[in-house]
């Protein structure tokens, strides 16, 4: 179980933070020691993606190829076709669209094990503007056959899942953030790709969240517990393949599903969950995310709050949903 956190006591100024991309870099460095097939590629993004030290330590296996995302993914595909396991690392906003044809044709169509570390995803670069936000990546990537899409909830989950991503067959989109993210997991647990983590059992509704929204889902559930509601929380760190059983079980047990993601409400986690429920177990839903807009400018946490992507907004949505 996660640490005892509560929306009543949560203070964003003091809650411990750890960076997902730093955790990724540490895991990659460990992987490189034990597996000579691991290669790191960055597109003038090695410092951001925390592969700079990798490149220094393994100059024969770490490459910075310049600002050229299409070439980044194409090269990674060529390397993967020869038996290497390349991690191609850059900004999520540029990879999700500029390099998408290389991802689709060269990695997914071919089932090659290219691991795409997409950092600064969501609205984590709040003050950089929407050119630097990635709020469509989950929708785009999960619509491509053979792709796997992983969104860890915090640094620990990123660290653990990076090892799983490396050994997973085929291409993977691994979504990470930018500034150190709030810590969710302190219990050292492990994760399996495609297997959701049930953090709270519920009765009145279940929040299915990914990435940064997992923490806020937990905080919201704790807040609502004070009001007598029992809200389930699921960390759906793998958007594809989706853990359908976990979704259906939560729907059966709580009768209401709320999805929460740092992404456009169209086509991401909410869409994936809705596709399962609509076909197998029609269940009332609410979807929390950016409501089909480009986000405004601002410090990330302020933006998250503005768009109802912090625990207060999540709790509001769930409360209205349950109380009617």
């Amino acid at each position, binding site marked *: 179980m996660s640490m005892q956190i509560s929306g009543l006591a949560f203070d964003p100024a003091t809650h411990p933070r750890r960076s997902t991309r730093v955790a990724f870099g540490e895991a990659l460095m460990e992987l490189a020691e034990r597996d000579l097939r691991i290669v790191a590629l960055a597109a003038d993004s090695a410092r951001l993606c925390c592969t700079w030290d990798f490149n220094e330590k393994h100059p024969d296996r770490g490459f910075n190829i310049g600002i050229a995302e*299409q*070439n980044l993914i194409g090269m990674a595909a060529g390397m*993967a*076709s*020869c*038996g290497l396991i390349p991690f191609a690392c850059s900004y999520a906003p540029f990879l999700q669209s500029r390099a998408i044809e290389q991802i689709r044709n060269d990695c997914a169509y071919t089932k090659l094990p290219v691991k795409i570390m997409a950092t600064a995803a969501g609205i984590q670069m709040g003050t950089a503007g929407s050119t630097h936000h990635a709020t469509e990546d989950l929708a785009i990537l999960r619509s491509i056959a053979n792709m796997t899409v992983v969104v860890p909830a915090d640094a620990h989950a990123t660290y653990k899942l990076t090892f799983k991503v490396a050994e997973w067959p085929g291409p993977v989109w691994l979504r990470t953030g930018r500034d150190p993210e709030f810590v969710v997991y302190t219990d050292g647990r492990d994760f399996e790709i495609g297997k959701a983590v049930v953090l709270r059992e519920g009765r009145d509704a279940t929040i299915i969240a990914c990435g940064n929204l997992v923490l806020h889902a937990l905080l919201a559930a704790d807040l609502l517990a004070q009001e007598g509601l029992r809200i389930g929380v699921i960390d759906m760190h793998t958007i594809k393949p989706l853990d359908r059983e976990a979704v259906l079980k939560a729907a059966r047990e709580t009768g209401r599903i709320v999805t929460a993601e740092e992404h456009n409400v169209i086509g991401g986690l909410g869409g994936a969950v809705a596709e399962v429920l609509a076909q197998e177990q029609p269940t009332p839903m609410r979807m929390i995310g950016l409501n089909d807009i480009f986000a405004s400018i601002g410090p990330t946490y302020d933006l998250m709050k503005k768009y109802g992507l912090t625990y207060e907004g999540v709790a509001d949505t769930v409360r209205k949903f349950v109380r009617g």
Partner: protein
Amino acid sequence: MPPILNQDRPKESRAEMLARLESQASLIRQRIMTTLQAAGSGHVGGSMSCADIITALYFQVLRMDPSDPRWPDRDRFVLSKGHASAVLCPALAECGFFPRELLDTFNQLDSPFSMHPDMLKIPGADMSTGSLGHGLAIGLGMAMAARVQKRLFRAFVLMGDGELSEGSVWESAMAAAFFKVDNLIAIIDRNQFGSDCALSDLPSANALAEKWRAFGWSVREIDGHDMGQVVDALTEAPFETGRPSMIVANTVKGKGVPFAEARFDWHYHVVDQDVVDRSLAALRGAESAKEEQR
């Protein structure tokens, strides 16, 4: 260990080699037409223009083992101009990667073979291609993989000249020179035509040798239908240590099929019995004339 194709080839004189390759190229051109007849239509022009290059690669230059298509030390070949699948697939069949009868299914339901090659379905195909401007990055990745793995294989990439309008090509051009990847050998099938018209009527790359030199490549310009020049360039590459090599091969779109030569409207065309009869007659006629010369 079974013989490695091209590496363990019996000794022959240069004249014998060229005669063998020229006659093989004629056969491959005939197979393009019969394959496309099975399909009903296809990319005639751009398959014919690179038939001599493909023949030189598959029957003289590339080191590979058709009994083990995934042999890790094989040379890699990326058909970046994926629409020339109709020349690649017959060449792979003639090398022995699969029975040539399978080509009769080209483009048909659940066939492994189509207008653009699929590496997961075609034994011997090293990469799936089709969308232009992808192959050079992939070939660069392969060439760098050889370096990482301390293997000696080379990566050959065949691009079309129209493809050079894709910006991604130049991303890879820059990176290949930066990383001094001299086991990367690219060839441009400079047939001067696109799908709509002559490339001179479109924004398109020209002064190719100068451009690639400016990007840091070692460049040789050849007649892409002179088998001696084609084989020499492919076997002598890398032209310089520490630089990727570029062969600009001047070619004729539709080469070998007189009524399809240097025409945009044969980029993609219906191929029926009449077309095949006339093509094969022209190809066989030219081949016998050549034999008499020899």
